[in-house]
Every structure is written in structure tokens, then in C-alpha cells.
């Protein structure tokens, strides 16, 4: 017998009206059983990959965590030590090169701050862009404009990096930053020197450009869930379109935008290639001002990997794995929180899968 499932009040959620059979196991033929087993295995591969990745990463990172203790998160100096020295250093039972200190605070700071600034720029821009697209721009232009958003999402990270290093960074440094420094110079972080274009602010701006498509796409889906009746009612009451947006639309999707922002932030956290090219790769120091060079976890792992392989004790690789572990934890936590919030506020709007690099 075949039965379709539906809710009590007849409001069928498309995602759940799967046709279920009540055939029992013994009624399945052999090919059915084989197919089911294969599909099971395929379905479990993503979960198994995540478990496998996390387990291997943590295993590789443990010696570095033991060696550095809590100093790993608070220490400001990250040094592989003197790899050509004949003495080794021992700490908490772990052997590392002489003078090796693994303190990841500047990287954690750089990762979080650059993503945060990117978010502060990207959220108003994407929400504004999407509102303009759906509310103000004439319908015949809407699909054309939305094509730009989709194209932005598909541009490879290294192309952004190249553009940033040779065009955008120098442009910002010669035209925008001096004005910014003179206008906002009384705030310490906006003070000169403005550098040559590679640094925290430039990287954050390009990061913002990269995460706008994610936030915009999610916001677009969210806006389509706003009941048209409420908007029409607001217009009938005499509200201007701006007031409609402010009073009806935005409160309805506020939590969803927050979740979209969190997803965009998760994307920005893991961004590697572009940051490697634009950040100035300054190790061991926090940036002096908002224009200064800095480093993130992802870019530093790439930058330091070659050097880490020359460490005979292997501790350098453990230290990089520890950095990766920290990033993994931050990113997974961010993703989970974002998805939790979005599910509670919208009832399952499909989300864009982040590209991750």
C-alpha cells in the first residue's frame, strides 16, 4: 500500500510529502538491497569525511597544544625556532627546536577582525542592494542586475587577489586612505601612515566584495517569504515604500539577515588565497593601524608550510595543524550557529553552500 504523508491542517510542507511505502525488509529484492546499501554509504560519506578531517587535524595538533599550553591562544610570538641549532628545547614533555614559541594571538586577531570589518561593510551593501533590486528597480532590469551578483560569486579568489595587489590596493592607498586619514585621523587606528595598499582595510574591503553575493542571495530568498498582504496593507495605510521596508519587511527578515551575515562571516574566515596576496603577511605583530599589514590563520598556514617541512622535529607541522584546528573550530561553530538561527526564523529556506577558499 502506498500512502502520502501530509499535515493535519492540510498545509503540506513540500519537503516532507515524500511518498513512503510500508513494504517490509523481507519484501525487497536483492538488487533493491544492494542499491540501498550503496546509497547509504554514499549518504554517509560527507559525515565520515568531516569526522575523519577533524580527527586527523586534532591528532596532528595535540603536540603543539601540549607544548604551548594556553599560551597558544594568548602568545604574540610565533616562531619555529632556530632550526640549525644543535640544541633542542623541551617543554611539557614535548621536544621542539631551540627557541620555538607558538603563539597564535596575532593570527586569531587578524582572522576575526578582518572578517568583522568585511561584514560591517558587506551587510548594509548587500541588504541595500537586494532591497533596491526587489523594491525599486523596474522589473525589466531586475534579472540583468541579479546576473552581476551571481557573477561576483563565481570569480576565483586568486583573481580578486591579483586585482587587489595591482589595481585596487594602490588605488585605495593613493586616493582614499589619505582622505580617510585626514578626516578620521583623530581616531588612533585611522592615523597615518597609510601604507601602499596591502593591509587590513584593503583586505577587509575585498573580503566584503566577496561575501556580498552570499548575503545578497540569502536575503533575496528571505525577502520572498515576506507576506505580500502585509506589504500591501502598509501601502494602503499610506506608508511610503521606505517606511514599508523599515516597518514591515525588515523586522520580518531581521533574524534571517543575521544568519546570512553569519554565513558570510564563515566564508570570510576561511578565505586564503586573496588574503595571502593582500595582507602583507606580517607575522608576530598586530597591525599598527587599520591600513597596516597583518596575517590570518589561513594565509599563514600556506605561507609557513614550506618552512615547516624543514623542521626535523616535526613540531612546526604540529603548530600549523594547531592553527588549522583553531580555524576549523571557529568556522564549524559559526556555520552551526548560522544554520540554527536561520532554521528557526524561516522554516528551511535553502542556503547557498560556501565555497570555502
Amino acid at each position: 500500500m502506498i500512502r502520502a504523508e501530509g499535515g493535519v491542517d492540510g498545509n503540506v510542507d513540500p519537503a516532507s510529502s515524500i511518498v513512503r511505502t510500508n513494504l517490509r525488509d523481507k519484501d525487497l529484492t536483492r538488487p533493491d538491497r544492494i542499491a540501498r546499501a550503496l546509497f547509504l554509504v554514499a549518504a554517509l560519506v560527507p559525515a565520515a569525511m568531516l569526522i575523519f578531517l577533524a580527527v586527523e587535524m586534532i591528532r596532528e595538533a595535540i603536540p603543539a597544544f601540549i607544548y604551548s599550553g594556553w599560551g597558544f591562544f594568548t602568545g604574540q610570538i610565533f616562531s619555529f625556532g632556530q632550526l640549525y641549532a644543535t640544541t633542542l628545547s623541551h617543554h611539557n614533555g614535548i621536544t621542539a627546536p631551540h627557541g620555538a614559541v607558538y603563539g597564535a594571538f596575532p593570527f586569531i586577531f587578524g582572522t576575526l577582525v578582518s572578517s568583522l570589518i568585511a561584514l560591517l561593510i558587506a551587510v548594509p551593501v548587500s541588504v541595500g542592494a537586494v532591497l533596491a533590486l526587489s523594491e525599486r528597480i523596474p522589473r525589466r532590469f531586475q534579472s540583468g542586475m541579479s546576473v552581476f551578483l551571481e557573477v561576483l560569486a563565481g570569480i576565483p579568489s586568486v583573481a580578486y587577489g591579483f586585482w587587489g595587489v595591482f589595481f585596487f590596493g594602490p588605488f585605495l592607498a593613493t586616493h582614499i586612505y589619505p582622505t580617510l586619514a585626514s578626516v578620521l585621523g583623530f581616531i588612533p587606528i585611522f592615523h597615518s601612515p597609510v601604507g601602499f595598499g596591502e593591509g587590513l582595510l584593503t583586505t577587509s574591503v575585498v573580503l566584503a566584495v566577496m561575501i556580498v553575493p552570499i548575503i545578497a542571495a540569502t536575503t533575496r530568498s528571505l525577502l520572498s517569504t515576506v507576506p505580500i498582504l502585509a506589504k500591501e496593507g502598509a501601502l494602503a495605510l499610506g506608508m511610503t515604500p521606505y517606511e514599508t521596508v523599515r516597518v514591515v519587511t525588515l523586522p520580518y527578515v531581521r533574524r534571517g539577515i543575521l544568519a546570512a551575515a553569519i554565513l558570510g562571516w564563515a566564508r570570510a574566515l576561511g578565505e586564503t588565497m586573496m588574503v595571502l596576496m593582500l595582507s602583507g603577511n606580517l607575522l608576530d605583530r598586530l597591525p599598527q593601524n587599520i591600513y597596516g599589514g597583518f596575517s590570518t590563520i589561513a594565509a599563514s598556514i600556506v605561507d609557513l608550510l614550506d618552512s615547516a617541512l624543514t623542521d626535523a622535529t616535526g613540531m612546526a607541522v604540529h603548530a600549523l595543524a594547531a592553527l588549522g584546528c583553531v580555524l576549523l573550530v571557529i568556522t564549524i561553530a559559526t556555520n552551526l550557529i548560522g544554520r540554527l538561527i536561520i532554521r528557526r526564523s524561516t522554516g528551511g529556506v535553502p542556503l547557498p553552500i560556501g565555497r570555502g577558499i
Partner: protein
Amino acid sequence: MRPNRLPSRLWGVALLTVVTMLLLAACGTTAATHHKTKKKKSTTTTLSAGNPSSPVTLTEAGSSLLYPYLQLLAPQLHAAFSNITLEPAAGGSGLGISDTIAKLTNLGGSDAYLSAADALANPGVLNIPIAVSSQAIDYNVPGAPAFLNFNGKTLAEIYQGTITNWDDPQIAALNNGVTLPNLPIIPVRRADSSGDTFLFTSFLSATDKTWANGPAEGTTVTWPAVADELTAVGNPAMITVCKATPGCIAYIGISVENTAIEDGLQEALVENKAGNFLKPIQSTMTAAALAGASATPASLTQSLIYEPGAQSYPIVNFEYVMVQAQQTSATTAEAIRAFYTWAISPTGGATPNNLAADNFVALPSVVIPKVEAAIQKIVG
């Protein structure tokens, strides 16, 4: 109606299968590979180093200082041995060392010898020099004369951020009579794991106590935080960055020094142990090599930095090509032995023209027997 649930046993089996497969795959890649080593029944004491019986491609990765020289040698090698093709690549000496250790490449070019820890952990890796090279200190100061004098201590202080401007009295004291402009010094260093960094930091360690106790020497060191410091990947990039930055100072491998001079960089004279300020030219490099070569041990791990002698340039080094002593096949081993033997021979690779093209000099003759003994250890 009871929904059709799969028995939990099946879920468990499926998950177990998948995780086991993945773990097995991981273990498989880290397991040692066994191979049968053929015992060579040879009545002669020297292993052959001629054209192998079948075509062999030798991959090389590493030093960007050695890279132009190997690019020069590769076609000549192929002309001498039709079955040997050498494929050089750059990437930094650190990469050359780690790739050779990990068996990702046949040969690893490096300006730095194996560290004591690396040699202990990998007794099967040989570092075999094929030439003697050096390093120049170049600067870009518009209006300054060429050939400014520098010594190790001043360079160490520049790279530690203690000396920040070209008109600093310490630089003026080394160059009496020269007025330098008020221009911030912008030191440039290598970002990749670099043999040139090893040479430069070895020189700084030999001449400056603070540097020796702090960053010390290495293909990768913890550079002191200097405000305007720039980074570059590879020797050619050092030239590009320094050329574009007035006030810069950089350490550049001798093989690309001609390009640096053509691009408008100025070369410095560096003070040696005897107190003379010298250029990195073939005569001063030979003097340093001869001064240090006789102390070379059988492992060929020998520094030629800051050697005594009136005419010894202070930043000179053996150019090493790393290799695993145990090769997987006899033909590859023969090809590698042929490469080394040909490369060090004055009628093969180490001709005066080849050496002069990259400002290298030949290995001192006292080292040659030790090099040949090392070549004999390459078996397959």
C-alpha cells in the same frame, strides 16, 4: 502507520565501513614502501656513471640561486647523455631539502646544507656540492654612489630595525666622505624557505652576537619586527621589489646579480674577516672557498661564510644538490651518478664558460675526492 525504518544495525555497518575505508587509506599512504634492493655483484670498486640503458627523467626542485645554473646545464647534460633529461624547478632551498627527504623529487637544489637535526633524522640523504656560489648585498638609493661599504654588524642592525635611515652615522662611518640622503631604509627579505636567507643569516650570526643569539641562521628564521620590511618570494622577486622601492636593501644570489645590476640596483662591498671590503667576484669567491675547503668533512656539510684571508669574500657557499642515497631503480641511480660526475668535471658541466655565466666558481680540488666518494653511495 509505522514508517519503514532501516534497522539500526545496517546504519552502524555502513558508517563503520566508510570510516574504516578512509582510515585504511590514510594508513596506507604513511606505511613504508618495501622494495627489493638488488645486490650489485661488481668486481670493480667504482659504480658506473654513464648513459643509462633506458631514458630517465631527473626532477629537481629547490634553490632559486642554483636554478639558472641548472637550466644552463640541462640541455648540455642531455647532449652528453641522450637518456638523461634533467627538469629543474625553483621554489626555495627549504623546498629542495624537504622534497628530497619526502622523496617527492629526485634531486633537491639547496644553498644550505642539511641541518644537524635533519641529517640525524634522515641518514639516507646526501648533500653533494656541485659548485661554489656567493651572495651579493644590493641597494637602491637614488643619488648614492655604487659600491658602498657594509659590514655584518651594520646589516644586522638594519634587519633588526636599529638603523632605520640611510643617513645614519654608522653607515657614514664605514663610507668616509660620502653623504647619503635622508631616506628610510626598507629591508627586503625572502618570504619562502630560502637558502639565500640561510647564507645571509649565517653571515649575520658570524658577525653580530645579538643576531646569533636571536634569529640565528636558517632557511627560515624569526625575523625581528621591522616597520617597513618587505618580503619577496624567490631571487627574481627580490630584484623586482628592490627596484620598485627607493631606499631598499636586499640580499641577492650571485647567479642573478647581473640582472640586478642591469635593472639599476647598486652592489655593496662587504667587509670580510680581514677587514677588507670586497665585491663578490670569482677571485674573491675562490679565495674564500680555498680557505674553508680543506676542513670539509666526509658528509660535505661545510660553511664557507666569513672565511679568513685578505681576499676572501665573506658570503660564499657550496651549492648543494641533495639526493637520497638509496634509489628505487639501478637506472635512476646510474643517471644520478652520471649527472653529478659530469656536473663537477671541468670538461663536463663545470666549464669556465658555464661557471662564469652565473658567477660561480669550481669546487676546490681538495673537495673533489670527498664528492666522488659521496657519489659512490648513490645506489639503486
